[in-house]
């Protein structure tokens, strides 16, 4: 089942002189993106891909191939050097309210409780105003969704690694940004919790139809979540191939193992990746 928003393939629009076509909505466009770090390391080379509005795109690739770097550039945290990047038709810029970025690190504030941390994103973005009541309720719901009910008043140092990551997840979801960038958000979780959160993420995504760009090393996770999987080459990273995942939604992640297509996808992506991992 193709999504409504996903169907709106970006047209060439009024962005005068642009060779490529930025989406007028909330899509992400990356073209000929290369990135060289101070010191000369070329981390990304000629990456090219698009995420249409409301699409769930997953990036997989060998460790150190430049996936996080690409996300950082899109989020405006890393200066863009060569190529073009556009998010919702605009150039990347750090701190755009229409982008919510979840790092691989939990980045929790040690002096705030779980509740305080979950609220932190919306709080700074509300520009000092009092948060409306429904935000607190929503925060509580999200905390319950990530399985942290009862820990609202715990401090980060009282939580396990996985619990901290789940707190960061709730903080990211609470921000109403239409574009979500997620860097290995479930990296520190056990298989069971992971399954639960993947299902929760899909539910939220099906409700809000946000645009998601998601990095993972877990192929099962990638197939379960994605509309489209981008496979990266080894460093310098570029997109080696795009694999659309044509499985109906809503998906029951637990039942995917019984689906022959799931195993086909797995084999195919694995073959692509394995070719990159040979030294």
């Amino acid at each position, binding site marked *: 089942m193709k999504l409504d928003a996903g169907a709106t393939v970006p047209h060439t629009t009024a962005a005068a002189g642009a060779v490529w076509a930025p989406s007028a909505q909330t899509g992400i466009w990356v073209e000929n993106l290369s990135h060289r770090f101070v010191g000369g390391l070329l981390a990304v080379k000629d990456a090219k891909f698009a995420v249409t509005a409301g699409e769930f795109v997953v990036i997989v690739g060998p460790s150190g191939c430049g996936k996080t770097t690409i996300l950082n550039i899109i989020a405006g945290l890393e200066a863009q050097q060569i190529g073009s990047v556009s998010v919702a038709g605009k150039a990347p810029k750090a*701190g755009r309210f229409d982008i919510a970025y979840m790092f691989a690190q939990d980045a929790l504030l040690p002096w705030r409780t779980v509740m305080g941390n979950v609220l932190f994103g919306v709080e*700074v973005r509300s520009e000092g105003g009092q948060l409306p009541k429904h935000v607190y309720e929503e925060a509580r719901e999200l905390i319950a969704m990530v399985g942290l009910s009862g*820990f*609202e008043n715990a401090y980060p140092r009282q939580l396990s690694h996985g619990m901290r990551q789940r707190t960061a997840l709730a903080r990211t979801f609470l921000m109403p940004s239409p574009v979500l960038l997620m860097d290995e958000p479930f990296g520190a979780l056990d298989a069971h919790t992971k399954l639960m959160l993947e299902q929760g993420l899909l539910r939220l995504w099906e409700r809000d139809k946000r645009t998601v760009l998601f990095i993972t090393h877990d192929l099962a996770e990638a197939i379960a979540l994605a509309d489209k999987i981008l496979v990266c080459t080894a460093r310098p990273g570029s997109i080696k191939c795009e694999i659309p995942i044509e499985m109906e939604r809503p998906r029951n992640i637990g039942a995917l193992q019984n689906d022959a297509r799931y195993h086909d996808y797995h084999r195919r992506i694995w073959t692509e990746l394995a070719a990159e991992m040979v030294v």
Partner: protein
Amino acid sequence: MSAMETGSDRASHPQLSKSIPGEQARARRIGAFLNACRLNINRFLILAGFAAVWWAAVEFKWLDRFFFSSPVDIARFLREQFVNEILPNSLETLLAMLIAFALSGVAGVAAGLVLFELPRVKRTIDPILTALNSMPRIALAPIFILWFGIGLASKVALAFSLGFFIVLISTYGGIRNVDPTLIRLSRSLGCTSRQQFTKIMLPWAIPSVFAGLKLALIYCFLGVVTSEMLASKAGLGQLIMYYSGILRMDAVLGILFVMAIFAVLLTFIADWIEAALLGGWAETNTQKGL
């Protein structure tokens, strides 16, 4: 180090301890209380044992009473001179110390923040700061006495010269080593520079500022007593100099004992304030089990 081991169950958050049946929680509280009692009894026994051995050694003439005095003589001195000498001079010393500590705290934190906000100024005066800080400040005491006389001001000046740099360095250092991931978070969320400062940098620096303040407290005490020993009209340091001049070992040791009690009390109060203010979020010494 402090007698606050009982406070370690503040780590168990109300929300978390809810899952523990009340029965068990009470048992744990009682256990913690008994532990604290035993700890303090042990401390007392160590001191009492030491005093007893000392007393016996002097009574049986293994130690010379003239050089080593005796716990009994010390106690007698403290009792007899408490109102006349110990109390007024202690107040004098503590007053100077508190003034110096308050000034060091306010000026040190302010200077630390200003230096952080103005990196160019910081870079310019860095060598000067290092020079001032590594100078043996005690050597400045005669100068301060010359400038400010032998009253309160010169003691405060010496103590301040010690405390200020400690607080300055710990504030600046604390704010400087903020977790870069949190700065990344603040940029990605779009925090204003004001938000970044008040919501991330400042809270981050608090534990380190506290560590600096606790150290400054002790150093201010040291500064005041040193200044009093060199030249002063009043204070415990001056009292010690007077009695050691007339070879009254019981008095000298008695005053040292009073000073030790002050040091312990100050540290205890500082630990307590720290634990109360930082709540459950930062690991205080008590929680680390130090």
